[in-house]
């Protein structure tokens, strides 16, 4: 079972900053879309290094042929 953690900061004027943790790859874009539908317009998205790692459900298989 995977756990995703979100840290949400709602500023005094209602602006929302969302920190997404525990999601590798582009899965976090789905979370951004969800919050966009709940809160409003996306102003900015900054990806961290984990964003560029393979998605959680991607399997990488190495084979060596002689």
């Amino acid at each position, binding site marked *: *079972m*995977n*756990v*995703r*953690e*979100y*840290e*949400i*900061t*709602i*500023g*005094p*004027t*209602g*602006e*929302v*900053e*969302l*920190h*997404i*943790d*525990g*999601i*590798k790859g582009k*899965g*976090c*874009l789905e*979370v*951004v879309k969800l*919050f*966009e539908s*709940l*809160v*409003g*317009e*996306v*102003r*900015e*998205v*900054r*990806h*961290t290094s*984990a*964003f560029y790692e393979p998605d959680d459900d991607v399997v990488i298989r190495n084979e060596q042929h002689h």
Partner: protein
Amino acid sequence: MSAVAVFAPIVIASWPALGAAVASAATSLGFSLADQAFDSANQNQNTETTQRVDLEIPGSEVVLGTLGRDQRIRLVRDGVEATFARDARGRASVCVTGEGYSEEVLRQIGEELSGRMVQHYVLQKLKSELDARGMNLVEETVDENQAIRLRVRHWQN
């Protein structure tokens, strides 16, 4: 961490939902609720020494439901009166009046109130929607800048 995203709020709600946010914001800023007026006749009387500032809440839309078109919520604090209402274009607006207060001060009060109302609306909406999606609210705090921080966990198979 995977990403950081910033959102500008859009407030589209029925009057009861906005009313709850107004009440919550009022409490956090030390305002008291006056009576809710159901007709447009119940407005503040302007005198020569009473300043008045009208502010529209950006990105807002009040959806008409079964309640009266002219419903308003009045808040009072230290001789300042702030009235939230739906304007003719369907946007939420706040009118701030106060005898002996400058226009600048009233504007600051109005902007703080309307900002706090939007903050509380977003908070209520997020809490209810995230709960409906099976997410757990682990922590809720208010920092020194009056920003509300939520920590949410979502378990997935």
